[in-house]
């Protein structure tokens, strides 16, 4: 079960502009996953479902 989701950004290699490139997902047991923005990835689908249930993705601190 997902406990929290934080956005992960990567600088564009030419411009340095930050792009959203994935999510850091923390599960209830404390395990942390890096989830790519790939609709075929099952964890990405779980993040979408988690958001649809009313949860919010955080910005990195």
């Amino acid at each position, binding site marked *: 079960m997902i406990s929290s989701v934080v956005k992960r950004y990567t600088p564009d290699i030419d411009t340095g502009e930050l792009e959203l490139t994935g999510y850091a997902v923390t599960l209830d047991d404390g395990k942390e996953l890096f989830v790519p923005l790939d609709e075929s990835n*099952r964890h990405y689908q779980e993040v979408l479902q988690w958001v649809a249930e009313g949860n919010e993705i955080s910005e990195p601190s």
Partner: protein
Amino acid sequence: MASEVKVNTINEYTTASGVTIDGVELKDGSVKGNGTGRKNYIINGNFDIWQRGTSETGRTSSGYVADRWFINPSGGSVDSSRQEFTAGQTDVPNEPQYFYRFENTVADDNVGLWQKFEDVRTFAGQTITISFYAKYTTNKPTNLFIDLNQNFGSSGSSEVSTSVFDDTNPYTTSWQKFTYTVTVPSISGKTINANNYIGVRFGNRTNETFDFDIAQVQVEKGSVATDFEYRPIGEEISLCQRYYQYSDTGSRYVINGALQSTTDFRCFIPLHTEMRATPTVTLGASPVVVSNGAYDNNGVTLTGNTQIAGGLASAFSVAATSGTFGNFQPASMRINTLEFDAEI
């Protein structure tokens, strides 16, 4: 009295009938539905591959232990373990080495074990046969079922479930072979989206604790259960690694790359084989990035992955905790474990 018939050719009676010899159907140059080789659609049906570890206790959330085998604990708690056959036993033929022991230790219904096949188009409109060996050890499962679930992906058509088998007390404490044949529904008119699959589910309807042992699982086209297909172990693990890969190097794994800036480390992480999707990555504890005498051992963070030929092009956020990182400098990352998950 034994007899022998010698002929040059046996032809089918009609163009659709094929020829049946002692229950084996021959059609158009092959055993009907099976062809030759790669007949078993189940991956790790012999339970030889356990990249995540060979046992686990107390699983209460869905996931995997034996490669490719998805556990749904429902509201129960599942212990999984790899068990070894005694060499020379003859209850399960051809000397398999391992079987899977599945134990639900907290009473609940619909606890089950799945294998999901990539692509819901698999078997659509065709007849398939499921075969396996099974028994129980201590707590008999009293209402077992097998069903097929055609899942059409996110926002796709509603899932279609087809019952293959539903019966009380089929298992005993001795190994038995079970075979079931079913026609898979057509997918005509369905909307198919990402992450679609067809799953074979072995479950127990009764709210109870139970256990079962299972070996040599095979799903093949056609209406005949043929002998279990053994594949070379290297081929089997490669099939598994399309969905999951794990590396544990005891902190000796060094990945070379470069600092694009003082906070941006880029590298290439090799994979054994191309994965089904861009994988979820789990890093082992405390990765360290080192460059020109400076290092970050406190907060190396993966920020992006792209699957390219042979592996992942990856980006990490870094900040030197000792010394000073420079722009465009060679750098290396030391890490103990890497886990890649592209399961369905």
